[in-house]
């Protein structure tokens, strides 16, 4: 599973990354988590409000930081979808 956190490095981006790492660890998933700070790439995903969460190249959340429970839900849905 490839997870990307899109955002230029603001406080909310770090919060999203932290919660995502916790959710991944809780679920025991093997996932590669990377931060994308490059503006053209962020815009290329169609994202205009950061931070955004991308799971396997699908934007699943943008413009706000979901709770850990919500991220867990998003990860589970993406995981079972494959």
């Amino acid at each position, binding site marked *: 599973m490839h997870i990307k956190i899109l955002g230029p490095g603001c*406080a909310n981006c770090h919060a999203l990354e932290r919660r995502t790492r916790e959710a991944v660890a809780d679920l025991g998933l093997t996932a590669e988590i990377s931060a994308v700070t490059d503006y053209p790439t962020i815009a290329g995903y*169609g994202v205009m409000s950061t931070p955004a969460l991308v799971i396997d190249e699908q934007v699943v959340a943008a413009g706000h930081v979901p*709770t850990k429970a919500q991220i867990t839900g998003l990860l589970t849905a993406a995981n079972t979808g494959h």
Partner: protein
Amino acid sequence: MSTHATAGDAATPVAGSPRPAAGRWWRVAVPVVVAAAWLAAYLVNEPLWDAVVYHLLGLRPQSRLGSGVHFFLTDSVKIVLLLAGIIFVVTVLRSYMSVERTRALLGGRREGIGNVMAAGLGVVTPFCSCSAVPAFIGFVAAGVPIGVTLSFLIASPLVNEIAVGLLATMFGWKIAGLYIAAGLTIAVSAGWVLGRLGVQRWVEPFVFETRLGGQVIDSTAGLSLADRVRMGREEVGTILRKIWPYLLVGIGLGAVIHGWAPQDFFARYAGADNPFGVLIAVLVGVPLYSNAAGVMPLVQALHDKGLPMGTLLAFMMAVVALSLPEMILLRRVLRPPLIAVYLGVVATGITAVGYLFNAIL
């Protein structure tokens, strides 16, 4: 996806809580208690510090130290309370709008009406300056004219909700209303002028080459009310953590001016009689970087020292809307000539508004 999450969230308390009916009471009781506590703290603030500073510590209200310390303590608590309230309410209300919806509304608009809409939407759209660059690319790549996009980007920090709330409580709704009208006018006209100047050639070429991939997801659609309230709470924490140093410096300077600056010191250099007063205020304000909450105690203290409102509003707008960090951010998509013209046009607008208000108020 979000509907699944909402259903799951709603089901959890019923399954986990021993008294499911209590959930509904809490939803009413908690907001009422929080609002009451907020109001009580706000009302008790000034009498409390009166008692502590003037009676317990025995400082005289007429003394410099007494009035300075009293100003600092009263203003710190008052501004933090106001900030928490304003940020929470505005975040929850704005979560019903989104940058994606704003872009859809602006897509295909002509300049003119487009600039007016963009400025208005800039005020109500949830937007943080860290999203300025992706939003700029997203707007331009979707065919929104550069001038209209710039009206949005100018209005968003210039008509600042924190400034509106603080101005309204400190100086009344008339001043707050004039500030909103002035900010919108500047954003509309500056964006329109920049669009007329044909500034496309000064936009970094990669912006036009960016292909928007993926599906656009509306960032705030499908949130439950509980999500919006949680976002409001988190935003209060995030912003207070980010701005408290600016707030302390602002209130500290305000207290020093309040207690120590001679009565006619500022009036002599930037008072109503000095024709260059507004110009000086804007030139001082542009390089200063703070936010609306940090600059407001200064504005209040300077107002007490007899500076005219137009000069002070111009100063505040220059501090809040034009800052080095924002220009560095915009430099990623705008070439230096456009940054310079942008600064010039917005600063001119702010100066004009300052002189106008000094003349009519």
